[in-house]
């Protein structure tokens, strides 16, 4: 039991990461209706800009700022592609396009960053916050979970209580109609892409030191993040938050049980499958009525 609790706490770090990136994915989906597979890759690009700058000897915090700007820029660039050419495409087409973009980003990123060679990743928030069940919970983990919660609260408020939020939701549901009503569609969309780009970059800067520091593994964090988003059915921020943390905790616990442990990386897929089956069941139910 103790071992299980310990490993559950050990999974919190991963859980916070999934939750934070998951909430970002939901945010993007609700505002520009794109299931964005490039989310983590955008953040990774910004993070590697930070690494390049600090490795070149520039001071940390200005480099962080520059990295965030790079992340925002990459986000806007991808957003431009999506809004310019695929605004009226179906959700599945858009998702496929982002998958293609992800593959491209990873290929280019790996080349530019020297492939599998590790880099010196500046730790923005070093040290551990507290000890729980024999596990050091790092500042980075606490901050990740904290940011995920904060982003959840803010997104919820923003979308449901502000005029801009309303516009953005209109934009997501009926871009053409929104445009006719005088909503600046393209500008608002690009703003969303830029903001989420900046935010995921900052998130990944916190997460990266604890992760395998190469472009591909960081970019692929999007898979469990999208699994978390699916728990929230790409609608609910709170369910996504809970889903992400739960996913990390389950993964952590799985690593103590040898027979399950080797299938550990399949857990996000199992969760996706379970959620899809569940939501399909609902759909069938609705159809039958």
């Amino acid at each position: 039991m103790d071992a299980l609790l310990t490993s559950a706490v050990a999974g919190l770090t991963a859980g916070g990461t999934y939750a934070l990136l998951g909430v970002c994915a939901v945010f993007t989906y609700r505002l520009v209706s794109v299931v964005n597979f490039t989310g983590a890759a955008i953040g990774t690009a910004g993070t590697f800009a930070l690494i390049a700058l600090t490795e070149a000897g520039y001071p940390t915090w200005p480099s962080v700022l520059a990295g965030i700007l790079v992340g925002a820029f990459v986000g806007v660039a991808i957003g431009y592609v999506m809004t310019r050419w695929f605004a009226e495409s179906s959700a599945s087409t858009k998702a496929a396009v982002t998958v293609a973009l992800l593959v491209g980003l990873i290929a280019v990123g790996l080349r530019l960053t020297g492939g599998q060679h590790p880099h010196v990743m500046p730790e923005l928030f070093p040290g551990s916050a507290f000890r729980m069940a024999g596990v050091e919970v790092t500042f980075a983990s606490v901050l990740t979970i904290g940011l995920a919660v904060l982003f959840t609260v803010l997104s919820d408020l923003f979308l449901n209580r502000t005029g801009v939020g309303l516009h953005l939701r209109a934009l997501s549901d009926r871009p053409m109609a929104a445009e006719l009503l005088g909503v600046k569609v393209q500008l608002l969309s690009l703003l969303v892409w830029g903001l989420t780009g900046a935010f995921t970059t900052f998130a990944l800067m916190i997460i990266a030191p604890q992760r395998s520091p190469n472009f591909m593994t960081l970019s692929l964090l999007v898979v469990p993040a999208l699994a978390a988003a699916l728990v929230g059915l790409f609608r609910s921020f709170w369910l996504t938050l809970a889903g992400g943390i739960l996913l990390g905790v389950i993964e952590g616990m799985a690593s103590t049980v040898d027979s399950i442990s080797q299938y550990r990386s399949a857990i996000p897929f199992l969760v996706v499958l379970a959620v899809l089956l569940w939501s399909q069941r609902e759909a069938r139910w609705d159809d039958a009525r």
Partner: protein
Amino acid sequence: MGVSNMTWKSSLLAASLAALGLGAMAGGASAAGPTCSGGAIKVGAVSTITGPADFSEVPKATQAAFDAVNAAGGINGCKIDYTIADDKADPAVAAQAARDLIDNKEAVALVGSASLLDCAVNGATYARKDIRSIQGLGVDAACFSSPNIAPVNVGPFTLTTAVGYYATNVLKAKKLCAFFIIIGGTQEAYKKGIEDWEKISGQKIHLLDLTLPFQGDLTPYVIKARDAGCDTVLTNQVEPQVVQLIKTVDAQKITGINWLFLAPGYTEQVAKALADSPQPIYAGTEWEPYTETDSAANAEWVADMKKANRPLTAFSQGGYLAAQMFLKVVGGIDGEVTRDSVNAALLKMQPISNPLAGSPYVFGEAKTHSPMRATKVMKLDKGKWTVETADWVHLPDTN
């Protein structure tokens, strides 16, 4: 008198010259050395150059070694015509590349290959076509279990045993734990590596975990190692994961465990990224530590690489070593260098020593080949790798 004397003298001279000529001819006949039709010996390599990994340093070093020999006139006048084929880590491309080298380029042997999948994909082809590969860097398990492939590196599986052997003998490990990332069909080979260690050391592995993820958070694993009471942890992680693991260990404030890695962990990037870590970090090498550029064992390799303007990396040692072995073997062939004569020479060759490696290299008739069984252990000290074992750690035989 004078004339006859002259005649006598000149005939003596002629006779002795003739004798000398005969002698030279006789000497020539007994050690004709390798010959080649067309003035070239064709050699190839199948390597992963583009794709998920880049092993091009290996065959490029082989190329540099051959270039040096060619510039000096070749072996007995035969230049080496070397072709490097990129398999792009794609099985179909790898198979095609091998067929091209064997059938169209008519390579007599493969030298200095380094690929994610050449051995697994082409091992059977090499056996069927009866061509042998002096692999510059054996990566996958098939490189160490094919009759026609013999790598010049120790390889991750034997290195697992060797580094474990060092842990028990020198670090006095009592509770050795091993965590492996299992990719493809490597599980049995790693298990065998640990079993061999158990036979040699007489100890039992304290904890064996074959589920280390390629990506994902490692916190649960380092906690597992700590709570199991491991005093030494051995893993097969590659560069970025090595850094991630140690960062996670530091974040968890774990002390008192020795962290042992295989050759992929021994890089300058790892050293730099982990310069601040207080953990005792060790790595086993495949060859003479490449960072020791002043060592006598590295001298020839360093000189040739500098001449060819190639970087001094561990990979380039492998390619260079493979070339040296091939040159030695071909140098001992009498007559035409063909695939058959190279095969015959490899089969009956005596072990060849080279200062770059701790074990002599031999091909021979065995069904599987893993001739290299020695490592040097490096320790990370403030951002620099230092040699922990000045002498080679030789792995005793398990049988």
